[in-house]
């Protein structure tokens, strides 16, 4: 019984410690990576494609770009007649 509680406490300490440790390392690595990218691979026009988009909520899908392109073309063609 005592053992079980001890193990549980150990898991909590190790677990939370490790989660924080790992995500902190990830913060450092990510920040460093972003700086490297910004310095060595700057993008002329930073792609903000879908920054707003949350992970596509399941089921909801935007208009197909192919559809949009086809329509644009069709409208364009139509207007020029």
């Amino acid at each position: 019984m005592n053992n079980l509680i001890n193990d549980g406490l150990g898991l909590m300490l190790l677990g939370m410690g490790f989660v924080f440790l790992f995500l902190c390392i990830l913060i450092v690595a990510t920040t460093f990576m972003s700086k490297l990218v910004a310095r060595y691979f700057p993008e002329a026009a930073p792609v903000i494609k879908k920054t707003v988009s949350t992970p596509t909520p399941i089921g909801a899908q935007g208009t197909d770009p192919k559809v949009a392109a086809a329509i644009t073309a069709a409208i364009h063609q139509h207007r020029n007649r």
Partner: protein
Amino acid sequence: MEQKLLNLYHDTGLYQLELGQAAMIVVGLLLVFLAIKKGFEPLLLLPIGIGAILVNIPGAGFMAAPVYDATGHMVSPGGLQYYIYHGGIETGLFPLIIFMGVGAMTDFGPMLANPKTLLLGAAAQFGIFATVIGAVLLGAFGIMDFTLADAAAIGIIGGADGPTAIFVASRLAPELLGAIAVAAYSYMALVPLIQPPIMRALTSVEERSIKMEQLRPVSKTEKIIFPIVVTILVAMFLPSAAPLLGMFCFGNLMRECGVVDRLSDTAQNALINIVTIFLGLGVGSKLSAEAFLNIETLGILSLGLIAFSIGTATGVLMAKMMNKFSSTAINPLIGAAGVSAVPMAARVANKVGLEANKQNFLLMHAMGPNVAGVIGSAVAAGVMLSYVGG
């Protein structure tokens, strides 16, 4: 002839049905009702509910094991859910494939724009481990029959991430899998009810009104490199989390790299849908009366709720603390999104923020901790698998 008629009668559900099975069919119907009428994570809870109904039909044999004779020839085939459960869930394949698809649906942009929010995704995992202690205490005092492995699997409900919970439970406590999956998805669906009171209790109106500065644009290159960085860090520091995070990052890399759009599209649609249908039926197969109708299930449901609440609270508290020390303002509400439950928790943060200040759009800011919470709970899962299994 009379004998055959009698046989047929003995084959009917009416004759064979035990009380526990009837009760579990009702539970299945309840899940179906919650999925359809209340919109509780219907993509999972509908198949789980149906799976629970089917597996509890006496004599239908959905979980029957196949029988082979001595020469390896099949005498009688197994049931549908037998093959699904042993082929896709016991092996861990289905949760991993779904996690790949979720990765292909996830945009890490908001998190990359503000990496500090990863800390919120870490803090909110405290719910997981606090719950482990709760379960361990219930077990230690003999109130419920929980081992350390059970406690860990129950705690992961607080990760608010379905595939992670199913993956961990299938490895640490398969007999609790049904209850754990149901609890995980139910509470994820209840996020809009569970979180707001806690968020309001821990913050002042002023804090909830804090506006955050607009996120910087994130380049395509960063988005491509990020999943690779995560994979390498996982390989270095926590290989036991590599199945989950490796597949998640693989899916995300397919999404962002821009050269395998047809694979990314399939991972996000046909493949994840197919696997979701079968995952649900397979999880439902664990909702048998013996496994579900007991005091432990009550414990799991209660502890799961506690896990969620504590995770929400620690996320908010961490955000409050960061707001004190950070140069840029941080609205504490986005800390609640750290539990994951993507994208529901981020929307809740946005909604509660709008209540306090009608011009305060927190959605994008909350997406950072939200996806960080996915990584956080996968890391927690890895620690558990290593600690309990090792």
